[in-house]
């Protein structure tokens, strides 16, 4: 059996055995989703132009999807392997070392699908509809999961580069500017000029707007999906490359 498959199976097993690592990732975005709805539903009724006839739940859902999959869980798992010394057992084995990174990312695929499906179901329960239909649902799940996998590289890279548990744990803070300097609450054109300028250069904005298009519009805007996919691939490739470089330079 291939080493990547073996290490992926081990990492995926951990997703099931350690629900404490996944539940907060799920609970916090759902909490904010529900609380935000309570706060703004009256301010933004269905007649609000940018809601395209849906409730604010539909507008907020992509933010919650992106929020939920944006975790450093794999980074924490990696730094735990480093901290207890298990990584040395893997590094001393005759395997391609890249498999150590790929195995972790495989767990992010499973965790990403799991979390995206649950958050999507919560959104639907609160009245959101995916206007672009089944294909839109599939694309929504793929984009969310893929973004989660790409973002996981941040935690993995920081874990391998610093070998420090506290730094890796704290690296989740990076996601705050990435996630909230975006048109997460209102569209681009409703943002203050300075905020809009920042949101326009923040790549995460386009993941959110790409997903939002799938929910609010009846037709799939392949241009937006392409931009979101491109950002995910670029972001993921860069972080995976950095992680592999850190692993190759790793000298415990």
């Amino acid at each position, binding site marked *: 059996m291939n080493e990547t498959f*073996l290490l992926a199976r081990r990492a995926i097993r951990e997703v099931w055995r350690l629900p404490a690592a996944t539940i907060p990732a799920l609970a916090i975005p759902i909490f904010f989703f529900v609380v935000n709805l309570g706060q703004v539903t009256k301010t933004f009724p269905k007649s609000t132009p940018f809601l395209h006839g849906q409730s604010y739940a539909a507008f907020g859902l992509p933010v919650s999807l992106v929020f939920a999959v944006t975790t450093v869980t794999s980074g924490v798992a990696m730094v735990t392997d480093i901290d207890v010394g298990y990584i040395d*057992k893997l*590094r001393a084995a005759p395997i391609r070392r890249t498999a150590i990174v790929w195995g972790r990312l495989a767990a992010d695929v499973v965790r990403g699908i799991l979390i995206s499906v649950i958050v999507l179901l919560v959104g639907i329960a609160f009245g959101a509809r995916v206007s672009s239909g089944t294909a839109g649902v599939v694309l929504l799940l793929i984009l969310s999961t893929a973004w989660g996998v790409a973002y996981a590289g941040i935690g993995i890279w920081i874990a391998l580069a610093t070998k420090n548990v506290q730094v890796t744990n704290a690296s989740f803070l990076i996601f705050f500017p990435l996630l909230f300097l975006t048109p997460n609450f209102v569209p681009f054109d409703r943002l203050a000029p300075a905020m809009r300028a920042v949101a326009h250069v923040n790549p995460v904005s386009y993941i959110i707007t790409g997903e939002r298009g799938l929910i609010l519009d009846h037709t799939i805007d392949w241009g937006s999906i392409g931009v979101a996919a491109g950002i995910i691939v670029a972001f993921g490739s860069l972080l995976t490359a950095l992680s592999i470089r850190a692993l190759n330079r790793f*000298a415990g």
Partner: protein
Amino acid sequence: MTADVGSAAGDHAILARGLVKSYKGKRGQPGKDAVRGIDLAIDHGEVFGFLGPNGAGKTTTVRMLCTLLPITDGEAFVDGVDVRKHPAEVRKRLGVALQEAGLDMFQTGRELLTLQAGLHRVPNPAARAAQLIELVGLTDAADRSLKGYSGGMKRRLDLATALVHEPRVLFLDEPTTGLDPASRQTVWEEVRRINANGTTVFLTTQYLEEADALCERLAIIDDGELVREGTPEGLKAALGADVVTIGLEPGERDRARDALGSLDGLDHSADDDEGLALYVADGAGSIAEIVRLLAGAEISPGTVQVSRPSLDDVFLDATGHRIEGVDGHGAEADGDAESDPSATTVEVNA
């Protein structure tokens, strides 16, 4: 200390020439040489011990030989393969259990072993895992999460993970540190059994008793350098027949050494943390004269202890300090004389 490093790498299980590990200093601090030019020549099928206190460079050497740490200078071969040039090939031939049993706590013992066997491309990983579980006596715990394993169980499992592919060379870094005596015995038996099947074992230890009990040959390492190498018996025999250790007040050591210069049968003396160690032909027969000579110099020793030379005495002779108590570890601070069944100890309160 020089080993025979002129011979071909393939003739040895482990061969190292001038092995150096240097760490660069950070923020203007001076750098540190953790290992300073070590030569090793270990034959196939040997159990070779690396004895030294904490911080001597034992683990650093093992990590370099196992491809886990870049070698700063020098060269090393494991089973004839160049560690620097062909690390991937070296990894196929070695098994390693490091000091802290580094295990993934979210797996069961069986899963961990099956994974390790799979990573080493063992034909039937599940069957190999089952075999090793039985071998290290973890049958009852095999399907439990590692979180519930005791220190001894983890160590045995770690040892088993190092054996999945029947390595040619097995590295064990302090395999029994922190274990209770019964678990220690179990690990020793396992090491002997592994070695009997033809695997070369390179083990590091800070326990003199362990080096004595397990190793055919050993090297003593202190501050990054090898200071003695040989068989445990040979190293001890080289010191002379007996060791008389005299407890002295701090200021009395030089006067005592002068006073004892004329002692019959004295080979040489060495400074001990507590006083002086005298290497003499007949320890028990020399006590009366030692006490008399000291009395002549108006020194009354706190204690006089006679023992056969232990590896600790070898260590003291080579380095000027004892290995024991270096790390303040209670278990080995008791002294080799008490744990070595071959030692005859007479304590005289003078």
